[in-house]
């Protein structure tokens, strides 16, 4: 342990216990200790020590609560490498609209700092207060503005990675001709280009990896111009199919900024602060709604929002639907101020029943109705209340793909309810995969389901893991190794 040097090391049982489980059904496993590095040099030393001593490391960047089991050790004697002390915003570059951050930086911390420079970041839907920006982007959580999803990994660009074997690589144009960030800045570069260096997109190898290939010690992230005018609208509908057709038309011409589809249970959970409020509101809300933000950012912002609102309304009418500034007494402003900010301290998915399991995957919008039918049928069969199921659809990659998420709130203190949800999770996941749902982020039980159907990628991932983390130091037991 002397190789870890002066870093903060935690061995208290109570704290170790907090890392041993999360809100998923992942089996608990207590780590041996927790180490909190301050910089990349510390991280490299820890990884080198772990290789020498064959100690498993589990990287963690966000604070509690965790939901996917990826931060819970899968093997005994693991050391948690908690990156939350690395929370510096290294550089904000207004001209190139880039920000460089460490892994401990949260959305709650970053957005106000960006706003001071006239910038903001497209976020996931109400990230929790403690959510690391880098962890969210590396895990390819969907963000709210499809038109800025130039790739699925956007707005993530360049990284500094400590690989599992302890070597460091900077990716994208940060890994090019100029060896230091300072030299790059001096030459006018800003870590904008994510590709390479060379003929490998290294940043993709650590994405979706649950910390099992490399540890990212900083990342550059592309920002948006902070809107000067920003309005939110609703397109309500009784059924999903008609709404999807309208969504396709709007996405095709890249109208608007924020663009997401929620069912009543999901919107109620987002807007209400207690269980009774959620119950009351979801009964008032339309079954489905597109939420659309339209932003005017730089020149003539008011005119931009005006013409886009008119264009949107014209299209929406063609589908027999309406573009509304409010639904069921809920105004666009209220939704805007809610979804453009991190969740309240009690994470929004936990408000209704205290616990929540999610099923999420990717598909295309036209197939979502079939998946909804599958989940509802399974819920009915297990007597889980269908009306409690929150559904969130997030078009991604400029409308080419769609994140589909089912939220299953439950009372974790009630064993019967908990067992039903666990069974529902298993049953639905298998059925959805059979039906063609793409579980692109295979956490927990999904890993075996996914990789047993995709031997090619499984073998390739194992090959790559063998190159970058030959001793299987990083988060062993997850994914397929």
């Amino acid at each position: 342990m002397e190789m870890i040097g002066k870093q903060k090391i935690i061995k208290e049982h109570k704290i170790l216990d907090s890392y041993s489980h999360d809100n998923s059904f992942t089996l608990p496993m207590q780590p041996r200790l927790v180490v909190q590095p301050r910089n990349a040099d510390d991280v490299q030393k820890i990884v080198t020590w772990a290789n020498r001593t064959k100690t498993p490391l589990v990287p963690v960047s966000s604070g509690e609560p965790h939901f996917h089991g990826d931060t819970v050790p899968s093997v005994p004697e693991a050391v948690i490498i908690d990156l939350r002390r690395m929370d510096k915003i290294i550089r904000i570059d207004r001209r190139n609209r880039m920000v460089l951050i460490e892994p401990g930086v949260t959305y709650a911390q970053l957005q106000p700092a960006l706003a001071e420079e006239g910038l903001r970041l497209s976020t996931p839907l109400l990230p929790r207060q403690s959510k690391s920006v880098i962890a969210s982007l590396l895990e390819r959580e969907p963000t709210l503005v499809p038109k800025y999803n130039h790739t699925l990994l956007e707005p993530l660009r360049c990284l500094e990675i400590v690989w599992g074997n302890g070597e460091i690589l900077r990716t994208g144009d940060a890994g090019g001709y100029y060896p230091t960030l300072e030299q790059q800045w001096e030459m006018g570069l800003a870590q904008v280009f994510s590709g390479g260096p060379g003929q490998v997109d290294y940043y993709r190898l650590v994405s979706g990896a649950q910390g099992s290939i490399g540890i990212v010690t900083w990342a550059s992230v592309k920002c948006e111009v902070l809107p000067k005018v920003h309005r939110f609208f609703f397109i309500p509908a009784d059924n999903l199919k008609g709404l999807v057709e309208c969504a396709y038309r709007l996405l095709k011409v890249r109208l608007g900024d924020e663009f997401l589809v929620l069912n009543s249970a999901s919107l109620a959970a987002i807007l209400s602060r207690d269980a009774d409020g959620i119950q009351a509101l979801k009964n008032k809300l339309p079954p489905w709604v597109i939420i659309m933000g339209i932003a005017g950012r730089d020149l003539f912002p008011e005119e931009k929002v005006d013409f886009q609102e008119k264009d949107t309304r014209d299209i929406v009418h063609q589908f027999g639907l309406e573009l509304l500034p409010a639904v069921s007494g809920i105004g666009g402003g209220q939704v805007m101020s809610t979804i453009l900010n991190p969740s309240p301290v009690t994470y929004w998915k936990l408000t209704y029943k205290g616990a929540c399991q999610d099923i999420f995957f990717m598909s295309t919008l036209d197939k979502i109705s079939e998946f909804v039918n599958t989940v509802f049928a399974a819920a009915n069969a297990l007597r889980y209340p269908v009306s409690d199921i929150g559904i969130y659809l997030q078009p991604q990659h400029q409308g080419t793909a769609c994140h589909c998420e089912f939220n299953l709130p439950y009372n974790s203190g009630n064993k019967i309810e908990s067992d039903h949800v666990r069974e529902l999770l298993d049953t639905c996941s298998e059925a959805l995969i059979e039906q063609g749902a793409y579980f692109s982020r295979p956490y927990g039980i999904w890993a075996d389901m996914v990789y047993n159907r995709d031997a090619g990628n499984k073998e390739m991932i194992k090959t790559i893991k063998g190159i970058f983390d030959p001793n299987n130091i990083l988060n062993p037991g997850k994914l397929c190794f």
Partner: protein
Amino acid sequence: MALSRDAYRALEDIVGPGYISEDPAVMDSYAYQWLAETVRPNQSKFMPRPEAALLPGSTKEVQAIVRTCNKYKIKVKPYSTGWYFYGAPLTEGVIQLDMRRMDRILEIDEKNMFAVIEPYAIAGVLQAEVMKRGLNCTVTGAGASCSTLVGATCYHGSGGTSIYTGELRENLLGAEWVMPNGEILRTGSIGSGCGWFCAEGPGPSMRGIVRGALGARGGLGVYTKCAVKLSPWPGPVEFPVEGTAPAYRSPLPGNFRAYTLAFKDWDSLFEAYYRLYDNEIGYYAHRQWTMLGADLGPAFWMLYQDPTKSLDDIEEFVQKQEVKEFTEEMRRSFQLVLVGMSQRDIEYQDKVLERILEETGGWKVKKWLEPEMEQFALLYLLRLGKKNLNFVYTGGWVGNFMQVGTPDFVKKYRPLAEDATREYQEKGLLVDCGSDSMMGCVGSISGGGNCGLEQFGFYDVADKVSTAAAVEWMKHCIQEEAMHNIPPGKEGMYLAVGKTHEELQQDLAKQPATHTWQRKIKQALDPNDLGDRMYPTLDER
């Protein structure tokens, strides 16, 4: 070194006797390559002759060929539509896979905006088909006759519309890859049997191995299918074409505009790039017309409109007062096509552009506002079907300096590129068309933020002195770049083809990590070293 008869028969059994050849005349047609004279002994126009050429018709055949090559330890190099000389064999003892039979558009998913294509589906055909469905694809700088799959998987993949329609690196969704070890990898959602819509995952994204900033240029296996993301096209289902050859033009509806925007100085021009990024306007944004030189290009574009004129008339054109004024008016310029998704949209974009021009002191070049000139520009720029014009002066050209970066970075090498070119033009070793013959994307990636400038030099391929000067110019540019702490541009990639192994190793050692990781990846995927140095690796020490 002919193939053994056993190996030849094994390969013939896979594709059938009609799709394999080792006829020397046929082999020479593969070896004859543009730019070969800049790197081959005695300025030969031939790269090494392949031992045989095969035309596979399916992924299954490609896989069988690669497995046979592993068995007999034969190097294999795929080639589709070609660009530069990268697709040719770089050494003796290589078989060439000619992918022209795999030319299908397999699927166009109109709603979800992607197309699934084979290696020889060219951008022009893909564009024509997707436009019927209100969609468009990125046509790379290599033009409409080049393979879209290659842009997405094997090379760079940027084009004039990349600011809106994306770089093909960004647009690549699923890919089917016959790796050099003979295994097939299908990346993203298609690997899980869920369709072609997603490039990433499951879990760590093996899409990252498929390609990086650059593809493997045929040096690491064969890509047999891929899906690319498409973008909206609010125009007619096909280009309306009017005019007389060669200056065809396309009168597009009122929601289209084509401008040549000019500026009093370079700082203002690059400032306009930043303003376009922040305001998110522009469907096509590229510096195009100046590729034929700031002094000579405007005259060329004017004479091109007159079917009675030829290149022989260019000196007469240059002397015209109207042309002189035109030349000065557009000396520091780029092209911008605005496309409104609605009438309101185009009106808004026009208003924003006016304000940007006010802020930056820019103007719209008048000649290019004339309806016929604008219509010519729309067809040329959006279709990019006239890449032959790159060769129009002398039959040969190279592009130096090109690299991507922020406008603030690119403007640093702009004056170097001019200075490093001027003396070669003044000596008559390159075409004296103006020391600024720089072209390149205003936004080389989706949404902008990065751009590039590539300095064109035109040399006479029939003249050994001019060809030698082109090579000397490339080396001179690399020296100038090094002196000013600028990395070598495209010329470094060209010249690498002709370097010895030792020389190349010295270059690769300047970025050891990149090329060491590539070696480890190659060792894992290509154990019998079937590929070539187009996927460069640093030797183990």
